[in-house]
């Protein structure tokens, strides 16, 4: 009766990914595949130390948009309410892409920068670390 729907993956002798117990072969398409976004893709951006924005932004963007356009046309308007936003130079800042440090090419597209669907970008602006010494 007991059925494990998918393969159990072992890594370092530890069960990493398990699987649903179900009465039938339980398999579904991920709901947020890139093809569901009508030619667009998602990217998440967090400005580290600026918790005035309570969570990373979820942004809907064109994959062939340049990194510079992401900054100028999308990120800057998103952070405009923060008093430090006027001083922030995001192109000269420190970036992380999906947990790895990353040097963007401003004029290349997101895809050419390796920023694929549902990628997470974290930007740190040295000298600008939020308000009230609390990363706000």
């Amino acid at each position, binding site marked *: 009766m007991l*059925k494990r729907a998918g393969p159990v993956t072992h890594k370092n002798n530890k069960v990493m990914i398990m699987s*649903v*117990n*179900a009465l039938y072969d339980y398999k579904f398409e991920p709901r947020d595949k890139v093809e569901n976004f009508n030619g667009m893709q998602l990217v998440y951006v967090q400005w580290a130390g600026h918790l005035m924005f309570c*969570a990373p932004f*979820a942004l809907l963007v064109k994959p062939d948009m340049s990194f510079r356009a992401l900054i100028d046309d999308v990120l800057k308007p*998103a952070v405009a309410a923060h008093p430090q936003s006027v001083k922030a130079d995001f192109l000269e800042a420190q970036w992380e892409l999906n947990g790895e440090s990353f040097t963007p090419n401003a004029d290349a597209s997101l895809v050419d920068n390796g920023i694929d669907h549902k990628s997470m970008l974290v930007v740190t602006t040295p000298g600008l670390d939020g308000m009230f010494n609390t990363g706000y």
Partner: protein
Amino acid sequence: MAVKNKKLNLKDKYQYLTRDMAWEPTYQKKEDIYPDESFEGIKIVDWSQWEDPFRLTMDAYWKYQAEKEKKLYAIFDAFAQNNGHQNITDARYVNALKLFLTGVSPLEHAAFQGYSKVGRQFSGAGARVACQMQAIDELRHSQTQQHAMSHYNKHFNGLHDAAHMHDRVWFLSVPKSFFDDARTAGPFEFLTAISFSFEYVLTNLLFVPFMSGAAYNNDMATVTFGFSAQSDEARHMTLGLEVIKFILEQHEDNVPIVQRWIDKWFWRGFRLLSLVSMMMDYMLPKKVMSWAEAWEVYYEQNGGALFKDLERYGIRPPKYEDVANEAKHHLSHQLWTTFYQYSQATNFHTWIPTEEEMDWMSEKYPDTFDKYYRPRYEFLAKEHAEGRRYYNNTLPQLCQVCQVPTLFTEKGDATKLSHRQIEHEGERYHFCSEACCDIFKDEPEKYVQAWLPVHQIYQGNCEGGDVETVVQNYYHINIGEDNFEYVGSPDHKRWQFIKGMAPQQKGDDQAEKTVQKPNAA
């Protein structure tokens, strides 16, 4: 005493009216009649060991429930006839009810469906009877809550379309997906999730201190339905504890399965209750106890006693309870500032707490409020005063499992957002915490299907590409009435009218004295 002996005693009566009314099937196999009972891997050796400590039978159930209903509806009538809404401490309070009606009451209905379903799936008669009674209770809760709040709906905004909103609005996907997750699990996981982890371990936090707070804010109708529901809950909690003990006593192989469910559902419930933390600290104008205090009493103290009791079965306290315990100093403040910045997309209002309220929070949160949160409110108040009431116009990232925006901070560092991500079968997934990430890794097939409201808007499935259209057309939130800042809202104006123009009646004087001027800050 002779009279008493004529009656069956409680134990015999329970035996006759539950077990002895069941029968052993003869021409069908038990596995065919109860096909969902074994696939979760839970082994039941002897169903007759199931005990309902209350030993409640249907006849007694109807008798006591009828009495509760009569009391409850007499109070609803009195409340409505006497315009009870005019006597609450402050109309800001009603916003907690808007969240309750859209976020909690539909869960009562979901619980009704859930217990009706699992009540069919157990081969033990005692368990079936207990689930049947609980299903009826949950339906009663859903209905009485809607009745109680229908009076408020006549006088305040945001209460007009709760069931519709529950299915669609971004933050209501948090409670909705919580219950959908439980209801799509097997029957034993459902009971572990809802009867034990949620009802026994966590719902006290909502129904006891928050309802006491409703009383303190003069909301007679809400405290009455709350406590009336909770009187059923006392039975449900007992069932929750019995369920766990029963499963654990049946077979040692059940222990690791139950432990994994407890870990999962403690955390799912904790994330869901983060909404309650802000109801308690921010939406009760007169305060009873802080979220941190309630967490200490109802989780750390009572949960501590419970898990000590369960030690003998080899069960340990839920994984990540240390994270939850530490978060009590931050949770309500992080939630409220989130809803403050996304009030354009909520069916309730938000505001900056008054000076007096902030002083209360400083006292209740001595290590965190003045350091982290008071400066934020002072900044936001100044922005508002200068004509820049802060709204965040960009949609947030949501956790793939709990569906809350990934807004929580790391344990021990309230300046650093907690975020985890993994890749699974070529897709990236993001989480608010290690705990939610663990839950995903245990059952990825379940959570890859998550209906995340932000992504659904971006996929074009919510009747519009811009927030305004989605909020108005898809959510049925009336723009300029239900949403945005409290100060200056139609509710606020109506409340000022009520307090200024209402004829002097008994009770009004008192209400006048305790009302706090909105936005004194």
